[in-house]
């Protein structure tokens, strides 16, 4: 069974080399190769997940046969393998669901390039998930940023390029802070491998040495990664970047790219700094407050939007706020709730982006709310999918959004009173605000148009693969919402392996 331990390495390498090969392939072949690569990596991750459930423990894999602390390492546990599988599923559905729109949005000769970026993005996400080396993580964070920037600007419109520049500016500040933070940490501990750093940090804390530099580097790494994942005060780049890129890009950016950084932060909390050290530094209170503010202000901005894609994008700010609130609560269970919300938000938000694209197309390419009136009757599958996504975001039972809200509320009850009260109150307010804009949009698309019909109806049978993708997305959401117990057990087991 030892051979199976190579699978994380294979996954990263397959996606990276397929990106290189894609650069010389024609457009059609590039698309097929991309689909095949995502499927293969998904299958490999699933095999690894089953194997790890069998052995019940995580392992580290030496790269190039140099033992620690000199060599580079990969580490895999059930959480990592499951995340890789989940990311593959979401990416596959987003790419296929947006492929028709991609042909319309992107210039003919650039379409092959899009799949290079997708492959690179996948490989960097996998590396962020699996790596056990902090500096490797930094390098792949940068690759991820560059690929994401390409995905935003591939449409080549003025809006898209401006959004990409703004994204790069904030993102580079974030990675600069991350780099500085890990350099200080290397300076304090003398190691770059996560497990070695953790041992040394424990020694430093026990001897009460270098407390201020340690705090500074925790702050720099947390703030750096939260800038990159668009936590509330740093979210200015997000709405344009998600709103003006082609639909696959928005789905992938909102559901995978920002989540990869959050997953890296959770990994840093558990495996580099150590959970208790991180908890005792007051940075979690800052993340908690920012998260709460994001939950309210993200929703308030979303209510004001007249453009459906920008509304969905602003709702991401609120959902990222939820995740950071969970991290800020500082209990194991709350972080498990955050990880569950990563899954549920990824599944729901990509569904919403792809469904809203279908609705816009059925309304004469317009994205304005007024034109969307009655769109659900013109494109029935997209309408149903948008309704499912909205219900999930609001937190109606049967859908994943409800489960993550429930988990957040449960974990709020386990913490001290000064945090429990604001968490529960803001959770309530945010749910109401979510309901305001998502229900407003859903009611609008299900309002029949009076008088003459302005736009033709898109028949269900003509939708082809797009309709299939939406149905699979709806099923995925229902699965996450109804079979949540095994998933939370899996997350808790995976977090246990982190320690």
């Amino acid at each position, binding site marked *: 069974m030892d051979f199976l331990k190579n699978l994380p390495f294979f996954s990263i390498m397959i996606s990276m080399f397929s990106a290189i090969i894609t650069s010389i392939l024609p457009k059609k072949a590039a698309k097929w190769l991309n689909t095949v690569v995502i499927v293969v990596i998904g299958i490999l991750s699933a095999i690894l997940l089953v194997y790890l459930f069998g052995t019940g423990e995580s392992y580290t894999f030496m790269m190039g046969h140099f033992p620690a602390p000199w060599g580079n390492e990969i580490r895999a546990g059930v959480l990592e393998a499951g995340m890789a599988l989940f990311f593959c599923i979401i990416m596959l559905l987003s790419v296929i669901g947006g492929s028709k729109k991609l042909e319309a949005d992107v210039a003919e000769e650039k379409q092959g390039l899009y799949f290079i970026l997708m492959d690179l993005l996948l490989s960097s996400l996998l590396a962020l998930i699996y790596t056990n080396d902090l500096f490797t993580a930094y390098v792949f964070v940068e690759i991820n940023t560059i690929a994401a*920037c390409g995905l935003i600007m591939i449409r080549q419109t*003025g809006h898209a390029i401006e959004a990409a520049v703004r994204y790069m*500016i904030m993102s580079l500040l974030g990675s600069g802070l991350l780099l500085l933070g890990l*350099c200080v940490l290397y300076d304090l501990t003398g190691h770059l491998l996560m497990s070695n750093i953790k041992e040394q940090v424990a020694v430093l804390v026990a001897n009460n040495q270098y407390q201020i530099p340690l705090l500074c580097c925790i702050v720099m790494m947390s703030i750096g990664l939260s800038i990159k994942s668009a936590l509330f005060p740093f979210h200015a780049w997000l709405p344009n970047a998600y709103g003006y890129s082609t639909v696959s890009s928005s789905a992938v950016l909102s559901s995978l790219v920002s989540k990869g950084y959050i997953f890296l932060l959770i990994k840093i909390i558990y495996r580099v700094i150590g959970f208790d050290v991180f908890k005792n530094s007051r940075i979690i209170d800052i993340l908690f407050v920012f998260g709460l503010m994001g939950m309210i202000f993200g929703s308030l901005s979303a209510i004001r939007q007249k453009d459906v894609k920008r509304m969905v994008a602003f709702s991401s700010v609120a959902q990222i706020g939820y995740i950071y609130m969970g991290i800020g609560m500082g209990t194991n269970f709350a972080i498990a709730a955050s990880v569950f919300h990563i899954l549920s938000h990824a599944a729901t938000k990509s569904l919403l982006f792809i469904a809203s694209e279908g609705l816009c197309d059925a309304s004469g390419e317009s994205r304005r709310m007024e034109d969307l009136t009655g769109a659900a009757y013109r494109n029935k599958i997209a309408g149903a999918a948008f309704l499912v996504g909205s219900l999930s975001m609001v937190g109606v039972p049967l859908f994943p959004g409800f489960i993550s809200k429930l988990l957040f509320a449960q974990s709020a009850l386990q913490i001290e009173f000064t945090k429990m009260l604001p968490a529960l109150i803001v959770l309530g307010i945010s749910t109401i605000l979510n309901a305001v804009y998502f229900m407003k949009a859903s009611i609008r698309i299900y309002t029949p148009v009076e008088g003459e019909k302005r736009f033709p109806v898109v028949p269900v049978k003509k939708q082809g693969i797009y309709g299939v993708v939406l149905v699979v997305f709806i099923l995925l959401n229902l699965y996450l919402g109804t079979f949540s117990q095994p998933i939370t057990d899996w997350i808790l087991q995976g977090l246990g392996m982190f320690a």
Partner: protein
Amino acid sequence: MGNLLVNYGEAVAMILFAIGAANLLLHKNLIKKIIGLNIMDCAVYLFLAEKGYITGRGVPIVVDGVQSVEAYINPIPSGLVLTGIVVSVSVSALMLALTVRLYKKYHTLDLDEISMRLKKEEGM
């Protein structure tokens, strides 16, 4: 205060980092933003190089058969600097390419003005 004087290299690196970050965020001109980005990255490399240097020791390349660890500085930070330079070169190139695109479209380097014009386009 004493520590600050002894580790003046690191202190300078931190000041440079702040200057670079402020340039990156506050300047309207895209080229100046990119210069700020490069100052910020270089500050980190200065910090790393400063951390790896040990006074009185040589470059970690074995010449004349001297193999003692005592003779050389720590090579790992230098390796990290090299990796970092590669990353920052590619990122700067990407930013410059985006700047060229924007300049060809709008004939200005002022990011705020470009945003204003985009808003107007949308309003029409």
